[in-house]
Protein backbone atom coordinates (compact mmCIF):
# COMPACT_ATOMS: atom_id res chain seq x y z
CA UNK A 1 0.00 0.00 0.00
CA UNK A 2 1.22 3.48 -0.85
CA UNK A 3 2.30 5.04 2.49
CA UNK A 4 0.64 8.34 1.51
CA UNK A 5 -2.70 6.58 1.30
CA UNK A 6 -2.36 5.74 4.98
CA UNK A 7 -2.54 9.36 6.18
CA UNK A 8 -6.34 9.85 5.90
CA UNK A 9 -6.71 6.57 7.78
CA UNK A 10 -4.25 7.76 10.45
CA UNK A 11 -6.11 11.06 10.82
CA UNK A 12 -9.50 9.32 11.05
CA UNK A 13 -8.26 6.84 13.66
CA UNK A 14 -6.80 9.62 15.79
CA UNK A 15 -9.97 11.70 15.63
CA UNK A 16 -12.20 8.70 16.46
CA UNK A 17 -10.05 7.74 19.43
CA UNK A 18 -10.16 11.33 20.68
CA UNK A 19 -13.93 11.28 20.15
CA UNK A 20 -14.07 8.24 22.44
CA UNK A 21 -12.47 10.35 25.21
CA UNK A 22 -13.89 13.86 24.65
CA UNK A 23 -16.89 13.30 22.42
CA UNK A 24 -17.89 15.49 19.40
CA UNK A 25 -15.34 18.10 20.45
CA UNK A 26 -12.73 15.88 18.77
CA UNK A 27 -14.28 16.60 15.34
CA UNK A 28 -14.55 20.32 16.04
CA UNK A 29 -10.85 20.49 16.84
CA UNK A 30 -9.95 18.40 13.79
CA UNK A 31 -11.82 20.83 11.52
CA UNK A 32 -9.58 23.62 12.81
CA UNK A 33 -6.48 21.89 11.38
CA UNK A 34 -5.61 23.23 7.94
CA UNK A 35 -5.44 20.47 5.34
CA UNK A 36 -8.00 18.16 6.98
CA UNK A 37 -11.44 17.91 5.52
CA UNK A 38 -14.15 15.98 7.32
CA UNK A 39 -16.16 14.05 4.71
CA UNK A 40 -18.56 12.16 6.99
CA UNK A 41 -18.36 12.49 10.75
CA UNK A 42 -20.73 9.59 11.40
CA UNK A 43 -18.79 7.22 9.18
CA UNK A 44 -15.49 8.68 10.39
CA UNK A 45 -14.27 9.65 6.90
CA UNK A 46 -11.68 12.37 6.36
CA UNK A 47 -9.47 13.50 3.49
CA UNK A 48 -6.06 15.08 3.69
CA UNK A 49 -4.40 17.49 1.30
CA UNK A 50 -1.65 15.81 -0.69
CA UNK A 51 0.94 18.55 -0.25
CA UNK A 52 2.20 17.76 3.27
CA UNK A 53 0.30 14.87 4.81
CA UNK A 54 2.90 14.18 7.53
CA UNK A 55 2.82 17.86 8.56
CA UNK A 56 -0.98 17.76 8.69
CA UNK A 57 -0.92 14.76 11.02
CA UNK A 58 1.66 16.53 13.19
CA UNK A 59 -0.63 19.57 13.38
CA UNK A 60 -3.62 17.42 14.28
CA UNK A 61 -1.69 15.80 17.14
CA UNK A 62 -0.47 19.22 18.26
CA UNK A 63 -4.02 20.62 18.14
CA UNK A 64 -5.18 18.09 20.71
CA UNK A 65 -2.02 18.35 22.80
CA UNK A 66 -2.28 22.14 22.93
CA UNK A 67 -5.66 21.89 24.65
CA UNK A 68 -5.61 18.56 26.46
CA UNK A 69 -1.93 18.04 27.27
CA UNK A 70 0.48 15.13 27.02
CA UNK A 71 -2.12 12.48 27.78
CA UNK A 72 -3.84 13.31 24.50
CA UNK A 73 -0.56 12.85 22.61
CA UNK A 74 -0.29 9.30 24.02
CA UNK A 75 -3.87 8.62 22.93
CA UNK A 76 -3.02 9.71 19.35
CA UNK A 77 0.00 7.44 19.31
CA UNK A 78 -1.88 4.42 20.69
CA UNK A 79 -4.70 4.91 18.20
CA UNK A 80 -2.43 4.37 15.19
CA UNK A 81 0.42 2.22 16.50
CA UNK A 82 -0.68 -0.76 14.38
CA UNK A 83 -0.57 1.31 11.19
CA UNK A 84 2.73 2.91 12.14
CA UNK A 85 4.32 -0.50 12.66
CA UNK A 86 3.75 -1.27 8.97
CA UNK A 87 5.17 2.02 7.65
CA UNK A 88 8.79 2.79 6.72
CA UNK A 89 10.24 4.87 9.61
CA UNK A 90 10.93 7.87 7.35
CA UNK A 91 7.21 8.01 6.47
CA UNK A 92 6.05 8.18 10.09
CA UNK A 93 5.08 11.73 11.10
CA UNK A 94 7.58 13.20 13.59
CA UNK A 95 4.93 13.63 16.31
CA UNK A 96 4.19 9.90 16.27
CA UNK A 97 7.75 8.55 16.29
Amino acid sequence: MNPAARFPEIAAKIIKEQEFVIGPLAWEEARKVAGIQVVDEKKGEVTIQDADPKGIIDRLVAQYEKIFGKASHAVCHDAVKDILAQMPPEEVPASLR
Partner: protein
Amino acid sequence: MSDTDTSQDEFKKITEELYERNLELAKLYKQVDTLNKELATANENLKALIKQRESLVHLVTHKVKGAFTRSKYIFAGMLDGSFGELGDTLRDMATKGLESDNTGIETVDLVLNADNLQKGNVKYEMKPIDFKQIVLEKIADKKIQAEAKGLALESDISPDGTYAMLGDAFWLREVVNNLIENSIRYTREGKITVGLSGGDGKILFSVKDTGVGISDEDKKILFTEGGRGKDSVKINTDSTGYGLYSVKLIIDAHKGRVWAESEGPGKGSQFYVELPAA
Protein backbone atom coordinates in the same frame (compact mmCIF):
# COMPACT_ATOMS: atom_id res chain seq x y z
CA MET B 1 2.60 37.11 35.38
CA SER B 2 -0.75 38.85 34.76
CA ASP B 3 -4.10 37.68 36.17
CA THR B 4 -5.17 36.70 32.63
CA ASP B 5 -2.10 34.46 32.24
CA THR B 6 -2.78 32.86 35.63
CA SER B 7 -6.40 32.12 34.85
CA GLN B 8 -5.46 30.72 31.44
CA ASP B 9 -2.92 28.44 33.08
CA GLU B 10 -5.55 27.34 35.58
CA PHE B 11 -8.03 26.72 32.78
CA LYS B 12 -5.48 24.61 30.85
CA LYS B 13 -4.60 22.64 33.96
CA ILE B 14 -8.26 21.89 34.67
CA THR B 15 -8.89 20.95 31.01
CA GLU B 16 -5.93 18.55 31.05
CA GLU B 17 -7.08 17.01 34.33
CA LEU B 18 -10.58 16.54 32.96
CA TYR B 19 -9.13 14.94 29.84
CA GLU B 20 -7.12 12.49 31.95
CA ARG B 21 -10.21 11.57 33.95
CA ASN B 22 -12.20 11.09 30.77
CA LEU B 23 -9.39 8.95 29.44
CA GLU B 24 -9.54 6.73 32.53
CA LEU B 25 -13.29 6.41 32.08
CA ALA B 26 -12.85 5.62 28.38
CA LYS B 27 -10.34 2.88 29.27
CA LEU B 28 -12.72 1.43 31.83
CA TYR B 29 -15.54 1.58 29.30
CA LYS B 30 -13.40 -0.36 26.83
CA GLN B 31 -12.61 -2.99 29.46
CA VAL B 32 -16.28 -3.35 30.35
CA ASP B 33 -17.15 -3.51 26.65
CA THR B 34 -14.56 -6.27 26.09
CA LEU B 35 -15.86 -8.20 29.12
CA ASN B 36 -19.43 -7.78 27.90
CA LYS B 37 -18.48 -9.21 24.52
CA GLU B 38 -16.69 -12.13 26.18
CA LEU B 39 -19.73 -12.69 28.38
CA ALA B 40 -22.03 -12.63 25.37
CA THR B 41 -19.86 -15.23 23.64
CA ALA B 42 -19.76 -17.38 26.78
CA ASN B 43 -23.53 -17.05 27.02
CA GLU B 44 -23.98 -18.22 23.45
CA ASN B 45 -21.65 -21.17 24.09
CA LEU B 46 -23.58 -22.01 27.23
CA LYS B 47 -26.89 -21.90 25.37
CA ALA B 48 -25.46 -24.24 22.73
CA LEU B 49 -24.20 -26.53 25.48
CA ILE B 50 -27.60 -26.60 27.20
CA LYS B 51 -29.24 -27.46 23.88
CA GLN B 52 -26.74 -30.28 23.36
CA ARG B 53 -27.44 -31.51 26.87
CA GLU B 54 -31.17 -31.41 26.34
CA SER B 55 -30.82 -33.33 23.12
CA LEU B 56 -28.66 -35.88 24.95
CA VAL B 57 -31.33 -36.29 27.61
CA HIS B 58 -33.87 -36.70 24.82
CA LEU B 59 -31.72 -39.42 23.29
CA VAL B 60 -31.42 -41.15 26.67
CA THR B 61 -35.19 -41.03 27.11
CA HIS B 62 -36.14 -42.51 23.80
CA LYS B 63 -33.28 -44.75 22.90
CA VAL B 64 -31.51 -46.02 25.99
CA LYS B 65 -34.57 -46.39 28.19
CA GLY B 66 -36.46 -47.97 25.28
CA ALA B 67 -33.68 -50.48 24.74
CA PHE B 68 -33.56 -51.36 28.45
CA THR B 69 -37.32 -51.76 28.58
CA ARG B 70 -37.44 -54.02 25.53
CA SER B 71 -34.74 -56.36 26.84
CA LYS B 72 -36.34 -56.26 30.31
CA TYR B 73 -39.53 -57.73 28.88
CA ILE B 74 -37.57 -60.34 26.97
CA PHE B 75 -35.85 -61.44 30.20
CA ALA B 76 -39.13 -61.23 32.13
CA GLY B 77 -40.80 -63.35 29.41
CA MET B 78 -38.03 -65.92 29.65
CA LEU B 79 -38.48 -66.12 33.41
CA ASP B 80 -42.28 -66.42 33.35
CA GLY B 81 -42.11 -69.25 30.81
CA SER B 82 -43.41 -67.33 27.79
CA PHE B 83 -40.62 -68.80 25.67
CA GLY B 84 -40.82 -72.30 27.12
CA GLU B 85 -39.03 -74.05 29.93
CA LEU B 86 -35.57 -72.77 30.85
CA GLY B 87 -32.62 -74.71 32.17
CA ASP B 88 -30.93 -73.58 35.39
CA THR B 89 -28.10 -71.80 33.59
CA LEU B 90 -30.42 -69.85 31.29
CA ARG B 91 -32.76 -69.02 34.18
CA ASP B 92 -29.78 -67.68 36.14
CA MET B 93 -28.64 -65.59 33.15
CA ALA B 94 -32.16 -64.23 32.56
CA THR B 95 -32.43 -63.25 36.25
CA LYS B 96 -29.12 -61.40 36.04
CA GLY B 97 -30.19 -59.75 32.77
CA LEU B 98 -33.47 -58.58 34.33
CA GLU B 99 -31.66 -57.17 37.37
CA SER B 100 -29.19 -55.38 35.12
CA ASP B 101 -31.99 -53.88 33.01
CA ASN B 102 -33.83 -52.73 36.13
CA THR B 103 -30.66 -51.00 37.33
CA GLY B 104 -30.29 -49.39 33.89
CA ILE B 105 -33.88 -48.13 33.88
CA GLU B 106 -33.50 -46.80 37.44
CA THR B 107 -30.34 -44.96 36.42
CA VAL B 108 -32.00 -43.41 33.36
CA ASP B 109 -35.01 -42.41 35.47
CA LEU B 110 -32.70 -40.83 38.03
CA VAL B 111 -31.03 -38.66 35.40
CA LEU B 112 -34.35 -37.78 33.77
CA ASN B 113 -35.91 -36.92 37.12
CA ALA B 114 -32.99 -34.67 37.98
CA ASP B 115 -33.31 -32.98 34.60
CA ASN B 116 -37.04 -32.41 35.03
CA LEU B 117 -36.60 -31.20 38.61
CA GLN B 118 -33.88 -28.81 37.53
CA LYS B 119 -35.87 -27.41 34.60
CA GLY B 120 -38.88 -26.88 36.82
CA ASN B 121 -40.92 -29.36 34.78
CA VAL B 122 -42.03 -31.14 37.94
CA LYS B 123 -45.30 -29.91 39.34
CA TYR B 124 -45.31 -30.73 43.04
CA GLU B 125 -48.63 -31.76 44.48
CA MET B 126 -48.38 -30.30 47.94
CA LYS B 127 -50.88 -32.07 50.16
CA PRO B 128 -51.12 -32.71 53.91
CA ILE B 129 -49.09 -35.86 54.53
CA ASP B 130 -47.66 -37.87 57.40
CA PHE B 131 -43.92 -37.96 56.80
CA LYS B 132 -43.48 -40.69 59.43
CA GLN B 133 -45.62 -42.99 57.27
CA ILE B 134 -43.29 -42.51 54.30
CA VAL B 135 -40.25 -43.27 56.45
CA LEU B 136 -41.82 -46.40 57.95
CA GLU B 137 -42.84 -47.68 54.50
CA LYS B 138 -39.33 -47.19 53.15
CA ILE B 139 -37.66 -48.82 56.15
CA ALA B 140 -39.84 -51.88 55.63
CA ASP B 141 -39.11 -51.78 51.92
CA LYS B 142 -35.33 -51.56 52.32
CA LYS B 143 -34.91 -53.98 55.22
CA ILE B 144 -34.60 -57.03 52.97
CA GLN B 145 -32.05 -55.32 50.74
CA ALA B 146 -29.95 -54.31 53.76
CA GLU B 147 -30.15 -57.69 55.43
CA ALA B 148 -29.23 -59.43 52.17
CA LYS B 149 -25.98 -57.50 52.38
CA GLY B 150 -25.51 -58.49 56.03
CA LEU B 151 -26.38 -55.03 57.34
CA ALA B 152 -28.73 -54.18 60.18
CA LEU B 153 -31.31 -51.54 59.34
CA GLU B 154 -32.53 -49.93 62.56
CA SER B 155 -34.92 -47.14 63.22
CA ASP B 156 -34.88 -44.48 65.88
CA ILE B 157 -38.21 -42.73 65.60
CA SER B 158 -39.30 -40.42 68.35
CA PRO B 159 -42.83 -41.59 69.31
CA ASP B 160 -44.05 -38.23 70.53
CA GLY B 161 -42.91 -36.23 67.51
CA THR B 162 -45.29 -34.52 65.11
CA TYR B 163 -44.77 -35.47 61.49
CA ALA B 164 -47.64 -33.83 59.67
CA MET B 165 -46.50 -31.61 56.85
CA LEU B 166 -47.44 -30.20 53.50
CA GLY B 167 -45.54 -32.01 50.76
CA ASP B 168 -45.52 -34.19 47.69
CA ALA B 169 -45.48 -37.76 48.97
CA PHE B 170 -44.16 -39.18 45.68
CA TRP B 171 -41.03 -37.02 45.64
CA LEU B 172 -40.43 -37.20 49.40
CA ARG B 173 -40.53 -40.98 49.05
CA GLU B 174 -37.76 -40.60 46.46
CA VAL B 175 -35.72 -38.61 48.98
CA VAL B 176 -36.07 -41.18 51.77
CA ASN B 177 -35.47 -44.03 49.34
CA ASN B 178 -32.37 -42.39 47.89
CA LEU B 179 -30.75 -41.66 51.25
CA ILE B 180 -31.38 -45.14 52.71
CA GLU B 181 -30.30 -46.84 49.49
CA ASN B 182 -27.12 -44.78 49.37
CA SER B 183 -26.26 -45.85 52.89
CA ILE B 184 -26.80 -49.51 51.99
CA ARG B 185 -24.60 -49.09 48.92
CA TYR B 186 -21.76 -47.38 50.71
CA THR B 187 -21.74 -49.57 53.83
CA ARG B 188 -19.86 -52.84 53.71
CA GLU B 189 -20.54 -53.93 57.28
CA GLY B 190 -22.25 -52.70 60.42
CA LYS B 191 -25.57 -50.94 60.54
CA ILE B 192 -27.74 -48.19 59.23
CA THR B 193 -29.89 -46.18 61.58
CA VAL B 194 -32.83 -44.22 60.25
CA GLY B 195 -33.81 -41.48 62.64
CA LEU B 196 -36.88 -39.26 62.80
CA SER B 197 -37.84 -36.59 65.25
CA GLY B 198 -40.27 -33.71 65.09
CA GLY B 199 -41.00 -30.63 67.10
CA ASP B 200 -40.80 -26.82 67.12
CA GLY B 201 -42.29 -26.69 63.64
CA LYS B 202 -39.60 -28.88 62.15
CA ILE B 203 -39.17 -32.51 61.12
CA LEU B 204 -35.67 -33.96 61.24
CA PHE B 205 -34.98 -37.10 59.24
CA SER B 206 -31.56 -38.71 59.37
CA VAL B 207 -29.73 -41.73 57.97
CA LYS B 208 -26.56 -42.76 59.79
CA ASP B 209 -24.31 -45.53 58.62
CA THR B 210 -21.04 -47.24 59.46
CA GLY B 211 -19.98 -47.05 55.82
CA VAL B 212 -17.09 -45.68 53.84
CA GLY B 213 -17.57 -42.08 55.01
CA ILE B 214 -17.00 -38.94 52.99
CA SER B 215 -13.76 -37.08 52.38
CA ASP B 216 -13.69 -33.28 52.73
CA GLU B 217 -13.09 -33.04 48.98
CA ASP B 218 -16.18 -35.12 48.16
CA LYS B 219 -18.34 -33.20 50.65
CA LYS B 220 -18.02 -30.09 48.48
CA ILE B 221 -19.63 -31.68 45.42
CA LEU B 222 -21.99 -34.09 47.16
CA PHE B 223 -25.23 -32.28 46.29
CA THR B 224 -24.15 -30.80 42.95
CA GLU B 225 -25.25 -31.89 39.49
CA GLY B 226 -23.24 -34.90 38.36
CA GLY B 227 -21.21 -34.59 41.57
CA ARG B 228 -19.70 -38.04 41.81
CA GLY B 229 -17.22 -38.21 44.66
CA LYS B 230 -13.73 -39.41 43.82
CA ASP B 231 -13.95 -42.06 46.53
CA SER B 232 -17.60 -42.95 45.97
CA VAL B 233 -17.10 -44.22 42.41
CA LYS B 234 -14.62 -46.78 43.75
CA ILE B 235 -17.44 -48.35 45.77
CA ASN B 236 -20.41 -47.68 43.51
CA THR B 237 -19.43 -47.82 39.87
CA ASP B 238 -23.07 -47.17 38.89
CA SER B 239 -23.04 -43.79 40.64
CA THR B 240 -24.60 -41.16 38.37
CA GLY B 241 -24.04 -38.14 40.57
CA TYR B 242 -27.70 -37.24 40.15
CA GLY B 243 -29.23 -38.92 43.21
CA LEU B 244 -28.22 -36.47 45.89
CA TYR B 245 -28.61 -33.60 43.44
CA SER B 246 -32.26 -34.63 42.97
CA VAL B 247 -32.65 -34.94 46.75
CA LYS B 248 -31.47 -31.36 47.17
CA LEU B 249 -33.79 -30.05 44.44
CA ILE B 250 -36.78 -31.82 46.03
CA ILE B 251 -35.92 -30.64 49.53
CA ASP B 252 -35.36 -27.08 48.30
CA ALA B 253 -38.82 -27.19 46.70
CA HIS B 254 -40.22 -28.17 50.12
CA LYS B 255 -38.37 -25.25 51.73
CA GLY B 256 -36.23 -27.65 53.72
CA ARG B 257 -32.52 -28.29 54.18
CA VAL B 258 -30.33 -31.28 53.44
CA TRP B 259 -26.76 -31.80 54.55
CA ALA B 260 -24.21 -34.48 55.26
CA GLU B 261 -21.71 -35.04 58.02
CA SER B 262 -18.80 -37.42 58.19
CA GLU B 263 -15.62 -37.50 60.19
CA GLY B 264 -13.84 -38.71 57.08
CA PRO B 265 -13.15 -41.78 54.97
CA GLY B 266 -13.88 -45.04 56.79
CA LYS B 267 -15.76 -43.28 59.59
CA GLY B 268 -19.36 -43.53 58.38
CA SER B 269 -21.75 -40.81 57.25
CA GLN B 270 -24.83 -39.05 58.52
CA PHE B 271 -27.30 -37.47 56.15
CA TYR B 272 -29.88 -35.04 57.51
CA VAL B 273 -33.07 -33.62 56.04
CA GLU B 274 -34.94 -30.90 57.84
CA LEU B 275 -38.48 -30.13 56.68
CA PRO B 276 -41.05 -27.64 57.87
CA ALA B 277 -43.89 -29.29 59.78
CA ALA B 278 -47.50 -28.30 59.14
